[in-house]
């Protein structure tokens, strides 16, 4: 067994004075304090990557910097799916006995550390070096292609996708650490600048600086431990051109396996945390795992189903779309929020009811790498 015993999350936004190591340090310091542990009790380390600080040994670079001498350490890399993939790996490592308290950490000054053009060019390299990148694509364009086909298949509309952007902003307005907190309306999303139609500016997450960290332990060493009940992955392709189908993805199989491992059904789930790099990403993932019918994610959001006081509270911190997206730590914010909600530490954002089981799903590449997690409150 394994538990998420400590959580650290920095505000996301523009942090001019910060860099990769200082953001990782801030998050790790907060996670240690939250778990009630000191450095010497951390014997494992898994970190993500940083586009502003490429390094062949980021984990041990950080270990030295932060003051750790772990008996297990390395970095992990599967794009946007990295955060949850690290949690799955930490679970496996801790459960195996290779470490007792493992620090999972990521941070990046992706907004202030480089230009927007540089970020867009770096991320577009996830495309095929020979058959895609020479055509001048962007990540929004890859997802614009996905959106066009998915809308064609299932009748999802631009207004439906806008509903998800509005919901994420509404949730972010209650979180002081969120990058974008000014309320928006559906019309604002529809009238925002075209980026890669059907995707517009407000269908896209912002670029952020930020960091996040967790302590994964074999024993529930803190009073607010969440048990990791199920973990699963599915990797179907790398490139949008290489996907067999843009109407079905790996999320369904991945989440089904995680739920089977945890022994839970959809009716047991009381909180949802889903990757939302674009509104279309969120719509597809919610529909893939069956939280709503195909093409119905926008309507469900508009009806309040995914609101804080709705039947299935979703990304109550504002998600990537409004809390922000700083790379690997972006999706980790989803788990940080899941943790404080399930352990009833979310303050003014606390959802009513006392759900004990949450589902989380991350996606990397162009709907290519999927990681699903099931978490359960211990107390």
């Amino acid at each position, binding site marked *: 067994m394994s538990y998420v015993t400590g959580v650290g999350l920095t505000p996301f936004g523009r942090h001019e004075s910060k860099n990769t190591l200082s953001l990782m340090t801030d998050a790790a310091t907060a996670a240690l304090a939250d778990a009630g542990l000191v450095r010497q009790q951390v014997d494992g380390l898994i970190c993500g990557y940083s586009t502003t600080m490429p390094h062949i040994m980021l984990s041990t670079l950080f270990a030295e910097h932060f003051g750790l001498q772990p008996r297990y350490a390395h970095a992990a890399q599967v794009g946007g799916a990295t955060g949850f993939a690290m949690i799955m790996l930490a679970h496996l490592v801790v459960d195996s006995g290779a470490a007792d308290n493992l620090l999972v950490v990521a941070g990046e000054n992706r907004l202030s550390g480089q230009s927007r*053009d540089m970020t*867009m*060019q770096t991320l*577009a390299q996830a495309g*095929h070096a*020979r*058959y*895609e990148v*020479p*055509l*001048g*694509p*962007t990540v*929004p*364009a890859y997802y*614009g*292609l*996905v*959106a*066009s*086909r998915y809308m*064609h298949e299932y009748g999802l509309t631009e207004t439906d996708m806008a509903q998800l952007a509005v919901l994420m902003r509404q949730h972010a307005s209650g979180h002081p650490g969120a990058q974008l907190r000014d309320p928006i309306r559906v019309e604002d999303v529809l009238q925002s*600048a*075209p*980026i*890669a*139609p*059907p*995707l517009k500016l407000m269908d896209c997450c912002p670029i952020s600086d930020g960091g996040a960290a967790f302590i994964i332990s074999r024993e529930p060493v803190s009073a607010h431990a969440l048990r990791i009940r199920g973990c699963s992955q599915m990797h179907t392709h790398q*490139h*949008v*051109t*290489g996907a067999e189908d*843009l109407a079905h993805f790996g999320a369904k199989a991945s989440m089904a396996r995680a739920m089977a491992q945890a022994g839970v059904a959809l009716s047991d789930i009381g909180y949802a945390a889903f990757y939302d790099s674009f509104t279309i990403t969120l719509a597809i993932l919610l529909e893939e795992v069956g939280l709503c019918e195909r093409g119905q994610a926008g309507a469900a959001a508009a009806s309040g189903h995914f609101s804080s006081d709705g039947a299935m509270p979703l990304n109550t911190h504002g998600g990537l779309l409004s809390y922000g997206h700083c790379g690997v730590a972006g999706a980790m914010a989803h788990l940080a929020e899941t943790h404080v909600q399930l352990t009833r530490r979310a303050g003014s954002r606390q959802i009513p009811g006392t759900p004990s089981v949450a589902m989380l799903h991350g996606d990397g590449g162009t709907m290519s790498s999927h990681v699903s997690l099931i978490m359960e409150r211990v107390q």
Partner: protein
Amino acid sequence: MSTAANPQPSGASPEPAPFDWVDGQEAILYEHCGACGKATYFRRGFCPRCGATPVAVRRSAGQGTVYAATTVVRAPSPEWKAIAPYAMVLVDLQEGIRILAHGVPGLAIGDAVNIGWHRLGERLIPRAEPVASSTQGQQKK
């Protein structure tokens, strides 16, 4: 011994090297697996489904249907901003492969297209054109 009777040295293959549009040749090449029949756009010298090798390199006729469509309005670099917005499409070609290409403006999912070509400086770019207009384009040549 007559030199004319000697076979060609094995290194001097008469087959042309399989250059495609990325190398500046107006051609879309793909690999066809003789063992399982799979057609693969990203050439890699073996079949990714059954592992068979060698695979045949074939040339697509460039006729197909638009599978997905967007337009790059926010371009990634000064080079691309100079020509933005540009339509970008996934096209299912008749040989059973899907390719990423530019498109003429206004293409929609399901449109029948031919792959034509345009040049951006040194770069050769495959561009999907509606079947009717691309025929006209060829006649103008």
